[in-house]
């Protein structure tokens, strides 16, 4: 937790503690190493408490086929504050995802950034704490 955020937290002080705020732990994600993967948006699943981004990624194991990757993201409320909307990503558009991988080794992870082909970067909430 960054010091500025903690100060804000303590000033507000009403239940804004790690346990009460966190919807779930993030132990399933390996936050120590950001990875990147490119593919085609299958769907932006806009729902609480987590928006999910589904991406078709060319399969390394089966050339010519695609794997379906899932990326967890923040809530609609949080994402809206950071420029996201339900329509910001369209099925079929190319995208590069920066993410924290799943410790289980499964494909997918937690979104850090979504980078569109036109250069626009959509920040995922998980990355904001480092700014």
């Amino acid at each position, binding site marked *: 937790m960054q010091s500025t955020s903690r100060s804000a937290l303590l000033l507000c002080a009403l239940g*804004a503690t790690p346990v009460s705020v966190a919807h*779930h*732990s993030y132990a399933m994600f390996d936050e120590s190493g950001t990875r990147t993967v490119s593919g085609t948006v299958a769907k932006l699943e806009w729902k609480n408490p987590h928006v999910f981004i589904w991406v078709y990624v060319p399969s390394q194991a089966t050339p010519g086929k695609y794997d379906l990757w899932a990326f967890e993201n923040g809530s609609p409320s949080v994402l809206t504050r950071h420029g996201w909307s339900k329509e910001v990503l369209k099925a079929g558009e190319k995208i590069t995802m920066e993410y924290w991988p799943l410790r289980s080794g*499964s494909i997918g992870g937690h979104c850090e950034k979504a980078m569109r082909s036109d250069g626009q970067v959509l920040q995922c909430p998980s990355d904001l704490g480092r700014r």
Partner: protein
Amino acid sequence: MKATHHLLAMTLLTIVGMPSAMAAEPGMTYASLQDLPDFAGSWTPLTPPFVLAAVSTRPTAPPPSTPAGLADVTCTGPSTLRPEAITSCRSFITAARAARPGDRDYCARRTFTGQPSRGAGGSIEVLLTPGQVTLSVESGLTRRIYLRDRPPPGALDESFSGTSIGRWDGKTLVVETSGLDPKAMFLPGTGIGSQASVRERITLKDADTLEIESTLTAPAILTAPLVSRQDYRRARDRIFTPFDTCVQGDRSFDQKSGRDQFDATPPADLPPPPGN
């Protein structure tokens, strides 16, 4: 017959006269709503700056691995927090860590009147109707603020919303809330206690910024009232969806086992892969 008519006329006069007196107050008629600040609609919290991400997703140090370590970072609060509240929190954390996940109440409501909205699930909708302001918090709390001098009869049951009485002070809506459930969670395992109350001042700072200043008085856990401020940005096009710790279809949390999960079951309506 004449007497009957007279009685009827007096009764009608009384009935009509009462609302007329009340109607003089702002917010009591549809017509008077036009003169009030434009609170109506959806709002998303602006401050504090992204508490959720910093807390839950990007720790600068690994999360504490021991119950005592977790209690150290969790059971904190303002300097006016009573020591016994911290003790209660620490006991809860220790016990909760020792319990099996399925033993914990993951569906416990965590929002109460006077608690600043957080990033996720903290958006609000405001509805202005004659005699009442309704404030719906995305995470599930519905607040009904009655524009009157005293609580309506029968409205004093304790709840996480409490009983809210409001009045317009110029362009500011001043809300006094009592009847809060002592179990409303201030810290994990630590309720706000009895005799808690909240005073709020809700103001439109500009056309698209709403400020809620909240003063929580909770003598059981705080030695002095705690003031917090939360700004909201107008979000006219926001579509609200359910949000809770037990929301249906949560891919990251298994309600039955109480364990985290990453449910990668594809949505049913995905388009085919490229080139197919």
